[in-house]
């Protein structure tokens, strides 16, 4: 799991030292050069989708190795899930607190989608309607799709 994250996301941000957990944590919690210039900043807002090839994120860094998108997190996650090609993904929501490495989970199947954030990890079955007290992301995406009032 950490190899997938570092290979497709972390290595573009921090030097790899062969200690996967520490490398991943540095990528998530240290400052990175911004596209707009100025002091390096930690990724403290927005979202990222880590893919086997080119990952996408919202927070605009100087690194050219990512695609950048202005979609909201829910629009981006919905687009990704609706066009799922069966390969692994990591869905990340960033916030002021860094995302702990232990909250990172790879999604392999639409029946067990994982949304990783500083607070924890939401899990839901995207092939079924959201439960009443279920995942917020699941409910918002189903509302976007017009399947939930």
């Amino acid at each position: 799991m950490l190899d997938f994250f570092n290979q497709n996301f972390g290595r573009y941000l921090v030097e790899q030292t062969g200690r996967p957990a520490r490398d991943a944590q540095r990528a998530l919690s240290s400052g990175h050069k911004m596209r707009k210039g100025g002091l390096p900043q930690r990724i403290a807002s927005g979202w990222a989708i880590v893919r086997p090839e080119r990952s996408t994120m919202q927070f605009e860094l100087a690194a050219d190795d990512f695609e950048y998108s202005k979609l909201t997190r829910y629009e981006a996650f919905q687009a990704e899930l609706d066009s799922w090609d069966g390969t692994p993904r990591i869905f990340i929501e960033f916030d002021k607190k860094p995302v702990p490495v232990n909250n990172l989970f790879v999604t392999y199947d639409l029946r067990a989608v994982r949304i990783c954030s500083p607070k924890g990890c939401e899990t839901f079955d995207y092939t079924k309607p959201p439960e009443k007290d279920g995942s917020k992301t699941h409910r918002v995406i189903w509302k976007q799709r017009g399947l939930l009032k």
Partner: protein
Amino acid sequence: MTLDALLGAILFDELQDVDAAHAAIPVKCTAGLFHASAAIIEPIQKDRVAFIAALRPQHSIDPDLILKNKKGGLHRKFDNAFTNVLNAYPMLTAPALTWYVEGDADKIERLLSPVEFVGKRRASGFGQIRSWGFDTDELNGIEGVFGEPLRPVPVAMFSGDTSHPVVDAAWRPAYWKAEHRAACYAPSFI
């Protein structure tokens, strides 16, 4: 909660050494995969329970353990305000927990019999075990009667029903370590 994780935790209490505790788990192990199922639980009630952890920062920390500032000195300003942190947990009430395991029955019984509480909030009085029972069975702790996974099993090591979802899960102890996660077939109750 797999049975090898529970046995490993009990052994760690005795041995105070993680590697020794894992090596002493009396369960059959194939290429790192223990033949011990996750706990099978059929709740009669699902609820949530919240706990308030009252954090009381003190200044008795060894300075060597504190991250230094850019000049190599200690940070001198700390927030020492009293803080309350609210954590909510799902609470399941069940008449029984069941595990399937292939291993040394006598040693497993010796380790489990004194255990009175299991689960995350056992120190708060939750997860109380009324009694332990041990029976013989044909299941190996990895696959159920219909080929379903009884525990997280890496995709490459699983020979059962592959129609179950693949999830990212820790499949060997220590289960809290992110490095021990892999693409696994896992029971839906995990």
